[in-house]
Each structure stands twice: as C-alpha cells, then as structure tokens.
C-alpha cells in the first residue's frame, strides 16, 4: 500500500488529488492537507470584489467532496517535511498543525511515500509596509473574504459618488515583484465598467498602478499576435483599451509603502511619487509558505528542498544567467525535486528558474519586474500530470516520472474580464502557445503566431462565466468531472 500526501487544495493540489483517487487502486491512500475548509475558484473573486457575486458563489466546502471520493482530508497546515524520515523510521513524514475548529494547534506526523507540495503562495503583504486589508490601508481580492470586504468598500465609494463626491480609485499591484497583473487588470476594468453602467464614471478617476514595464506584459513578457492582416502586440492592444475607457496607467512602479489614503512609490525611471486615493486595491507579492525541512538526524535541510523565496526546487535549471541566455529548457517538466524524487512541487508552489518578462531594476537597485504567473490552466495541468506520473510509479513500476507539463511546451487560455453583464459585459480572450517563450522553436516572436491570439468582446464574458460554472462543477467532482480538461 502506498500513501500520497497532497499539501494544498487549490487548483493544482485539488486537481492532483482527484486524479490520484480516480486512477489509484483502493488499497492506496490519498491524503489532502489544507488549512482551508473551503475550495475557492479564485478567478471569480474579481466579481465578488465588485459585488456581482457573493463569496458563497465562488467557494464550497471541501470535506463533503473528499468524503464522497474517499480522500482522507485533514484540515491543517503543513509545518515541516522530513524526506528521510525520523531517527526511528526511514519513512518520510510531513508534520501538520490542525486548523480544524476543535483540533486547532494539534500537531501530527503524517507518513508519505509520495508528497505533492501544492501549497500555493503566501500572500506577502508584509513586503510593503501598510499594504493589505489586515492592519494595512489597501484592499485585496486574493481570497473570497478579502474580495467580500473589498465589495463593501466599493459600495461605499459608489454611495459617495452618487452623493456627488469625487473619488480616486487606484487598482494594481503593491510591490515591484508582484505577479497576477492579469487579475489587477480585470478588477480595474470591472470597477470601471460598474461605474460607467451606473452613470458615475465622470466623477471617478480610475488609476492602474503596475510593475509591468509596459501595459500588456501580464508577467509573460507580452504577446505578439496577428490581427486583421497585421502583426501586433498585447501592448498596443491593452493601451487601446485604456485609452478607450480613459483609465490612467502608471507603469514600471514599485510601491514603497501605503499610508492612510496615500501610496508612496518609485518608478523604473528613478522618479518618486505620492498617490492619494479614496479606494485602493493592490495585490501583494507572493512567497512560498514557511515550510521547513529536516534530514534523518534532525539537521535543517530547508535550502535543499526550497529556494530562498520559499518555493520548492524542482527539475528546473536554476543556474543564474542573463536574460539573453534564458532558454525554454530552463523550465521544469516533471516537477520532481532533484534530491528527493518522491517530492513534487506544482502550481505556484514550485520555484521558477527565472522571470518570463525581461528583468529590470532602478538605478538604485530596486527590482521592478513581474514574477512569472503559474496559475489557472498551467497550474491544473501540472497537478494532473504529476498525479498521473505518481500513479505510474506506484502501479506500473515506473522508476521516474512518466508525464511532463513544461510551461515552455504548454499553452494557456486566459479570459480577462473587462466588465460583467449578460448583454453588456466584455472580456479579453487570449490564448498563447507556449506560456514560456521558446526562441529556438519560434525564433521571431518566441511563440506560435497562429496559436497566440486575443480579442475583446461579450463572447469573452460568456466564456468566463461558463468557465466559472464548469470549473466549480469539476472541482466538486460531480459526474463526468474528469472529462472536463484542466
């Protein structure tokens, strides 16, 4: 009998757990450890943040799903990993601390044969003084609760606008090394759309504050695609939308601190600015969860398993090299740790070898570059492929991972909402192939021109809405769930 422990129940971990249970014979155990009681379809949090959805519409309890699928669910957070076991036992363990009401704080050692670290990001609000809703001065849509709180504050802004006051809304990222610019973009344009449809747009100034060097970078170095007989790029395409909707953009910015009603920031050009605001939604940078690792003798080997940013080291090429020498092959494909081959890192939890966007810093040395996104479709695919590799190693005698899911050989479909509404909504529908540019296969643009596309329209909104219901159906593991691709 083998036991596979999955840390985290987000898109990647939950997908891995469901596929493991689907493929593994019943004698093998699948254990999921997650500190959260609920699953959250995070892409729809932006609609919670403008009051179009409730937090209940984007979440559901995990325990009943796991009970039905016969997956052992432990509501707890992982504390440390002992990949060589302890002194008395050679079987690897992970130490967990329960968050389940009634057992909160209780520690437990869980033995494993295979471990998938899908713990996602730690929302690192602390990287920027004053950032975030918990003790800070800005809002967030990173969790359903954050988004619900943001919706309340947005409703207050609307009330003030309706009373004739003017308001300045700043939306973007709260640090020079943030990722998920796409989510900030979506929230900015949903806010703009809500204000416009209520006839309040002329009293509101909407500012998009981003660490991207140019609009349309989205942390993937931008995209090039063919449109109406021309080769164009995501920068022009995105700028066009900002121009059309009269949204001010501040680019190449690193937020230094946030105070009550004020954002202090610096730019790649070396300028410093103070932005006063009435409403600010700024996404935090990410780091890995605070997991530690110990060898059999109790020696700390955290740096063997984890990169300094807390993300799990996998089969990537982490050799520091200049941007010009970055290769698609630097990116991992099996997601196995090179030292402990039965430990895997998927989704945001794996350590990327470097950014995708060109790295930039100020003359003073402040790095202002988007971190690489690895959410959504790529995240789900990694979870699935790692699960299938583990199944092959347990049941088919494979001695190494059999499946791959490199971001340099997979594409991504991304639908960025630009306003909700069955007949008035719009969204930017983008596809790119591959996610990480491969300049050896596609020397001119790094990606396939045929498979990298973008368009704005109501159809995109329908697609995003459809995906919301489809992926929540899939995550609930209802009949036919496995037929829905990641």
């Amino acid at each position, binding site marked *: 009998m083998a036991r596979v422990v999955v840390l985290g129940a987000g898109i990647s971990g939950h997908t891995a757990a469901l596929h493991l249970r689907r493929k593994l014979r019943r004698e093998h155990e699948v254990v999921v450890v997650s500190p959260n009681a609920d699953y959250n379809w995070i892409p729809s949090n932006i609609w919670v943040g403008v009051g179009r959805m409730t937090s209940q519409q984007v979440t559901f309890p995990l325990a009943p799903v796991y009970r039905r699928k016969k997956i052992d669910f432990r509501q707890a957070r992982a504390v440390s990993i002992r990949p060589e076991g302890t002194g008395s036992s050679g079987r690897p363990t992970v130490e967990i601390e329960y968050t389940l009401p009634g057992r909160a704080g209780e520690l437990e050692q869980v033995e494993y044969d295979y471990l998938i670290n899908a713990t996602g990001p730690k929302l690192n609000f602390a990287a920027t003084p004053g950032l975030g809703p918990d003790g800070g001065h800005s809002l967030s849509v990173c969790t359903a609760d954050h988004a619900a709180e943001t919706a309340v504050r947005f409703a207050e802004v609307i009330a003030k606008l309706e009373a004739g006051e003017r308001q300045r809304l700043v939306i973007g990222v709260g640090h020079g090394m943030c990722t998920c610019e796409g989510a900030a973009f979506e929230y900015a344009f949903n806010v703009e759309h809500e204000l416009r449809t209520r006839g309040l747009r002329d009293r509101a*100034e909407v500012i998009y504050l981003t660490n991207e060097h140019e609009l349309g970078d989205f942390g993937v170095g931008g995209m090039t695609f063919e449109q109406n007989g021309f080769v164009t790029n995501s920068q022009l395409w995105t700028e066009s939308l900002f121009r059309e909707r009269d949204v001010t953009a501040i680019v190449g910015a690193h937020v230094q601190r946030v105070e009550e009603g004020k954002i202090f920031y610096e730019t790649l050009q070396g300028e410093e600015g103070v932005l006063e605001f009435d409403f600010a939604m700024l996404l935090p940078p990410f780091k890995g969860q605070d997991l530690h690792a110990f060898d059999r003798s109790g020696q700390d080997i955290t740096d063997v398993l984890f990169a300094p940013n807390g993300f799990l080291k996998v089969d990537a090429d982490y050799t520091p090299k200049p941007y010009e020498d970055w290769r698609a092959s630097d990116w991992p494909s099996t997601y196995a740790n090179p030292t402990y081959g039965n430990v895997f890192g998927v989704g945001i939890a794996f350590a990327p070898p470097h950014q995708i966007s060109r790295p930039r810093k100020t003359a003073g040395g402040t790095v202002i570059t988007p971190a690489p996104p690895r959410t959504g479709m790529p995240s789900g695919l990694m979870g699935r492929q790692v699960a299938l590799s583990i199944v092959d190693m347990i049941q088919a005698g494979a001695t190494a991972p059999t499946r791959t899911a490199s971001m340099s050989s*997979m594409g991504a479909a991304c639908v960025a909402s630009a306003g909700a509404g069955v007949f008035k909504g719009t969204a930017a529908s983008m596809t790119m192939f591959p996610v990480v540019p491969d300049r050896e296969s596609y020397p001119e643009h790094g990606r396939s021109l045929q498979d990298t596309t973008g368009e704005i329209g109501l159809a995109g909104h329908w697609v995003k809405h459809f995906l919301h219901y489809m992926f929540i159906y899939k995550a609930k593991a209802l009949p036919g769930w496995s037929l829905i691709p990641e």
Partner: protein
Amino acid sequence: MSQNESNRAAAPATPAEPVAYPGELGDSIAPAPTPGTVRMRTNVPYQLYRFARVNMRMAKMIRRSHTH
C-alpha cells in the same frame, strides 16, 4: 494616455497637481476603436459567432497542451 484633468483636479486634497503622475503612461499611439467596433463587441448575433470561434480556439489550445 489622455488624462481626465477635470477628474484629477477634483480628486482629494492634492495641492499643486503635477502635469502627470511619475511613471504615468504618456499619450498612447495605440489605435482607439471606432464606435462601430465598440458596438460590435456587444452585438449579440456577432458575439454568438465569436463565442463559437473563441471556444474552438481554446479547445485547440487545451488539446495541444494535454498531449504530454
């Protein structure tokens, strides 16, 4: 990027407003859509067609990415 000066002037206590915010994107050369293009973005029959096209494109992408 054009800036709505009337909005900015009326924004909360910001004395001596600068001409532009540090880091603000200047006048963009990006093409602005015509009113017809904007209308077509929410034209239901046309968007039904685009819905089918977008789904086909995404299905192709997903199929290609699931073959490893």
